[in-house]
C-alpha cells in the first residue's frame, strides 16, 4: 500500500514539475515540490468527494482551481487559505487533519492554480498573497481529474453486496391501495403519505404522557457521508437507507438486523445523503448517490435490477416514489456545464425499463426554452430535483419542486433578467406520461442560492384543493393544485430579498441591487441559503389544520465569480460570508405553525440552535423535532410548548417518523452529519456549539411497557 502511494506521489510530483505545469506560473515558489504529491493524496482522500477529482466543485462546494478560485482567493494570502481549510475542512471532520496535511493541501491547491514550487516548505504561517504566486491557469492533468488511487489505497477493504442475508418473515407486498391509504402503523414513503404530510395518525403518545418516553433501541449507522435519512416502516420491518448507499432491514420492534445490502459506492461526499427509500409490492427501491436506481427484493435484500439514471457526476438524494407501478426519481449534481440536463424520470417498477423523462431544465426548442438568455443547453446548469415529489390520486397529478439554476448568481451564469425555467418552480406532471400539466415559477431568475425545491404539501379545505410549499426565502406559498393558480403567500420570517410580493398575483420584485448585480460584488440576502426553510420538512397536522414549519434565521453576503462558458465549468461559482439575521438575538432556530385555511400564525418560538430535522406530528397532538445542538424535542401541536426533550450523541438530523408494532407506538429519529447548508452555516456562526466528528445513529423511543 505504501509503495503504491509513494509511486502515485512521485508521478504526481513529476507531473507538476513537467514543463506544461510551468505555463503561466509566476513568482518563485512558496512550497516544496514534494508537498504537491502529498497534498494531492490528502486532497483526494478528504476533499475530492465534495470539490471533485478535478477541483471543479459541486453542490455547495466551490471550485478550487481556475478563475473563480482566483477571484475569491487571489487577493488573500496563503495563510488565510491555510487557516480557512484547517478550521473548516473537511466537512464533518473539521480541523482534524494534521497541520502538515493542511499545509500540503494548501500547496497542492496553489500548484493546481499555476503556482510554481520552490525549495521552502509551506506551513500555516507562510503568508504570501496568492495572486502573487498563482494565476489560475489550471494544468491540463488537473482539469482532466485525478484517479483516487492514493485515497483508495489508504482505506480499509470495503465489502459490497449482500453482506447479511436472511429473510423477512411473512413479508406483505405493498399494494397501490396501501400507498393511497397507508395502514396507521406504517410509514411507507418519504413524508408517509402521497400528500406529503409528515403526519402519523397514531395517538398513543399524547401531551400528557410524552414525558415518559424512553429509548427502546438504537442502531449505529455508517460513519462518513451525509445522513439525512427517513426510516421506512412496513408491517414491523424498518428499511433504512444508511450512508454509503447501504440498505438495511431491521426488526422495527427489537432493532435486530435482518439483512443488509452494501450497494455502494462508499461515501466520499459530505453532501447528498439518500433521504428515502420506496416500497412497492415485493421490492424496495433506492436511488443511489451515483445516480443509479436499484430494486431490491424486500424480503431478502438481493438486487433484482438496477439502471443508470444519469452518468457521473450526477447523483440522487431526494428519494424515490412509486405511482401506478412506475418508480419516479429526481436528480441532483447538475451544477457544472454538461451534455446532460437535469431531469425527472420514471421506470417500470417490476423490470426497471425506462419509461419517461421530463427535463427540469427547459431546453432549446421546447416550451420555456427561450428563458435562458439564449444559452445553449450545455450551459444550462442546475434545476435539480433533490426532494421527492407528492401525488394527488384523484387528480392523477404528481407535484415536484425544482431547485435553483447554476451558477447561483445570474451575473455569473449570464442569464441576467431571464426567468430560467423551470428553476424554482412547482411542476404538476402526469405520472403516467411525464407530461407537464402546469407550472408555477415562484421566484423567476433567482440568484442567491434560494431553492424553492422542498416538499409540496397537498391540503384540502372542502372542495378547495391546495398545494402549500415554502422555500429558502421563507415565503409560504399556497397554490390551487388543480390549475396552478396563486392563492396566497406569507412571509414567515424577516426577508430583504424582495421589495414587494404582489398579494394578488404572487409576483415578486427583487431588491434593485440584486437585479443590477455584477460579478465580484457582494450582495446581501436575508435569509440566506441555510433557509428560511430548507430540507427539514414541514408537518401538516390534519386534526388541527396546522402546518408546522422549521425555519433558520441567518443571512449571507454572496459574491458571484466570473465563469467560463465551457463544458465542466459552471458550478455554484460564488463566495459567501455569514451573519446572524438582524433582530433575532442570535436565535437561529425558529419553529412556526400556520393555520393553513387562512394562513394565520398560530404560534411560534425561537431558539439559539437551528433545527436539523423535519417535523413529524401525530394524531396524539404531539410534534417531534431535533436540533443542531443535539436536542430531540416533543412539543404540543396546539401551543408549541416543549413537553419533553433529551440530548442525543450528535446533531439530530434527518426525518423522524412514527410507527407502531403490535399496538405500540414508536418514534424513530437519527443523528448525523453532512446536512448541507443547514449544518454548514451554524458550524460557522455557532462556534460555541461543540459536536463530535462521528455519531451517525438511529434512536427509537416509546412509552414504557405496561406492567
Amino acid at each position, binding site marked *: 500500500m505504501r509503495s503504491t502511494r509513494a509511486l502515485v506521489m512521485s508521478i504526481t510530483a513529476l507531473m507538476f514539475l513537467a514543463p506544461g505545469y510551468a505555463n503561466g506560473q509566476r513568482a518563485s515558489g512558496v512550497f516544496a515540490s514534494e508537498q504537491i504529491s502529498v497534498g494531492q493524496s490528502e486532497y483526494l482522500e478528504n476533499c475530492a468527494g465534495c470539490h471533485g477529482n478535478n477541483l471543479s466543485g459541486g453542490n455547495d462546494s466551490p471550485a478550487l482551481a481556475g478563475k473563480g478560485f482566483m477571484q475569491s482567493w487571489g487577493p488573500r494570502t496563503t495563510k*488565510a487559505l491555510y*487557516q*480557512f481549510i484547517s*478550521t*473548516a475542512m473537511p466537512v464533518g471532520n473539521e480541523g482534524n487533519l494534521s497541520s502538515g496535511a493542511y499545509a500540503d493541501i494548501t500547496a497542492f491547491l496553489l500548484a493546481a492554480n499555476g503556482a510554481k514550487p520552490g525549495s521552502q516548505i509551506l506551513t500555516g504561517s507562510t503568508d504570501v498573497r496568492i495572486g502573487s504566486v498563482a494565476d489560475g491557469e489550471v494544468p491540463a492533468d488537473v482539469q482532466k481529474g485525478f484517479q483516487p488511487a492514493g485515497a483508495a489505497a489508504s482505506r480499509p477493504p470495503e465489502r459490497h453486496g449482500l453482506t447479511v442475508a436472511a429473510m423477512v418473515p411473512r413479508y406483505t407486498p405493498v399494494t397501490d391501495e396501501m400507498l393511497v391509504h397507508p395502514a396507521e402503523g406504517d410509514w411507507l414513503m418519504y413524508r408517509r403519505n402521497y400528500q406529503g404530510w409528515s403526519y402519523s395518525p397514531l395517538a398513543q403518545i399524547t401531551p400528557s404522557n410524552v414525558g415518559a418516553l424512553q429509548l427502546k433501541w438504537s442502531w449505529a449507522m455508517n460513519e462518513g457521508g451525509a445522513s439525512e435519512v427517513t426510516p421506512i416502516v412496513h408491517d414491523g420491518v424498518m428499511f433504512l437507507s444508511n450512508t454509503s448507499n447501504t440498505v438495511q432491514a431491521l426488526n422495527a420492534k427489537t432493532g435486530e438486523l435482518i439483512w443488509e445490502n452494501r450497494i455502494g459506492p462508499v461515501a466520499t461526499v459530505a453532501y447528498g445523503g439518500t433521504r428515502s427509500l420506496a416500497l412497492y409490492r415485493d421490492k424496495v427501491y433506492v436511488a443511489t448517490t451515483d445516480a443509479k436506481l436499484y430494486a431490491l427484493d424486500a424480503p431478502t435484500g438481493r438486487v433484482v435490477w438496477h439502471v443508470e439514471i444519469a452518468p457521473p457526476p450526477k447523483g440522487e438524494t431526494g428519494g424515490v416514489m412509486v405511482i401506478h407501478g412506475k418508480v419516479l426519481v429526481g436528480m441532483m449534481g447538475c451544477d457544472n456545464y454538461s451534455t446532460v440536463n437535469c431531469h425527472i424520470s420514471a421506470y417500470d417498477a417490476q423490470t426497471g425499463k425506462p419509461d419517461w423523462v421530463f427535463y427540469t431544465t427547459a431546453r432549446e426548442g421546447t416550451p420555456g426554452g427561450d428563458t435562458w438568455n439564449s444559452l445553449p443547453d450545455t450551459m444550462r446548469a442546475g434545476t435539480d430535483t433533490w426532494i421527492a415529489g407528492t401525488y394527488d390520486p384523484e387528480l392523477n397529478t404528481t407535484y415536484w419542486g425544482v431547485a435553483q439554476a447554476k451558477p447561483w448568481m445570474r451575473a455569473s451564469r449570464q442569464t441576467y433578467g431571464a426567468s430560467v425555467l423551470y428553476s424554482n418552480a412547482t411542476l404538476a406532471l402526469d405520472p403516467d406520461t411525464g407530461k407537464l400539466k402546469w407550472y408555477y415559477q415562484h421566484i423567476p431568475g433567482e440568484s442567491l442560492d434560494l431553492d424553492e425545491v422542498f416538499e409540496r404539501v397537498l391540503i384540502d379545505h372542502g372542495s378547495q384543493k391546495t398545494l402549500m410549499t415554502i422555500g429558502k426565502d421563507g415565503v409560504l406559498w399556497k397554490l390551487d393544485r388543480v390549475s396552478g393558480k396563486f392563492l396566497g403567500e406569507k412571509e414567515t420570517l*424577516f426577508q*430583504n430579498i424582495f*421589495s414587494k410580493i404582489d398579494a394578488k398575483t404572487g409576483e415578486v420584485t427583487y*431588491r*434593485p*441591487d440584486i437585479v443590477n448585480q455584477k460579478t465580484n460584488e*457582494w450582495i*446581501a440576502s*436575508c435569509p440566506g441559503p441555510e433557509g428560511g426553510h430548507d430540507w427539514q420538512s414541514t408537518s401538516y397536522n390534519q386534526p388541527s389544520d396546522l402546518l408546522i414549519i422549521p425555519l433558520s434565521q441567518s*443571512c*449571507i*453576503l454572496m459574491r458571484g465569480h466570473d465563469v467560463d462558458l465551457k463544458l465542466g465549468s459552471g458550478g455554484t461559482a460564488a463566495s*459567501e*460570508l*455569514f*451573519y*446572524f*439575521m*438582524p*433582530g433575532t*438575538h*442570535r436565535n437561529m432556530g425558529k419553529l412556526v405553525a400556520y393555520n393553513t385555511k387562512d394562513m394565520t400564525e398560530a404560534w411560534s418560538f425561537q431558539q439559539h440552535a437551528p433545527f436539523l430535522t423535519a417535523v413529524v406530528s401525530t394524531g396524539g397532538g404531539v410534534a417531534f423535532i431535533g436540533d443542531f445542538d443535539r436536542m430531540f424535542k416533543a412539543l404540543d401541536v396546539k401551543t408549541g410548548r416543549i413537553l419533553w426533550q433529551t440530548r442525543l450523541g450528535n446533531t439530530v438530523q434527518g426525518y423522524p417518523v412514527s410507527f407502531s408494532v403490535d399496538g405500540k407506538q414508536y418514534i424513530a429519529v437519527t443523528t448525523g452529519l453532512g446536512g448541507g447548508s443547514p449544518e454548514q452555516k451554524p*458550524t*460557522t*456562526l455557532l*462556534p460555541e456549539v461543540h459536536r463530535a466528528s462521528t455519531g451517525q445513529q438511529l434512536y427509537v423511543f416509546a412509552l414504557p411497557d405496561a406492567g
Partner: protein
Amino acid sequence: MMTRIRAPRAATCLISAILFAPLSAAAQQFGGDLDPAPHDISTRDNVVGNGTVHATLSGDALHISGNFSGLSSPATTAHLKMGAAMGVPGTAISELTATRAADGEISGDVALDQNEIAALNKGALYVELDSAKAPDGNSWAWLENAEGH
C-alpha cells in the same frame, strides 16, 4: 344657572399645542444587538464580541449610545451607516466615538436628513464597530424601532 364659557378658538389651539407638543415631538427609541459582522470560518475569531446599541431620535437629531465587550482586538472606529434595507450593508453617514479597547462604549450625535430618517424607520441604519483585527467590520447593530424590537 351655569354659563358655558366658550374659549376663543385661537386660545384652544394654543392650549392644545402646548398639551400635545411633547407627544408629537416624542423621541423615538431604536436599538439592536451588536452581532458579528459578515465573516467566514477563517475570519470568525476576529469578529467576536457582544454589546447593544440604543438610539434616540428627537426631531432630526439622533443620539446614539452603546457598549461592547469581548472583542478579540481593540476597537478602532465606529460609524453610523445606511443600507438599502435592513441587513444590507451600505455606506457611512457619520463617524461615532468608540473606546479604543476590547471592552468599551460607543456614542455619537448625528443630524439626519429626511432620507436617513426614512431609512431609520425601515430598519436600514446600523452602527458598525471596527477593530484592529477586523478593520472592515467587527460588529454591527441594526437599529430597529424599540416597539418592534
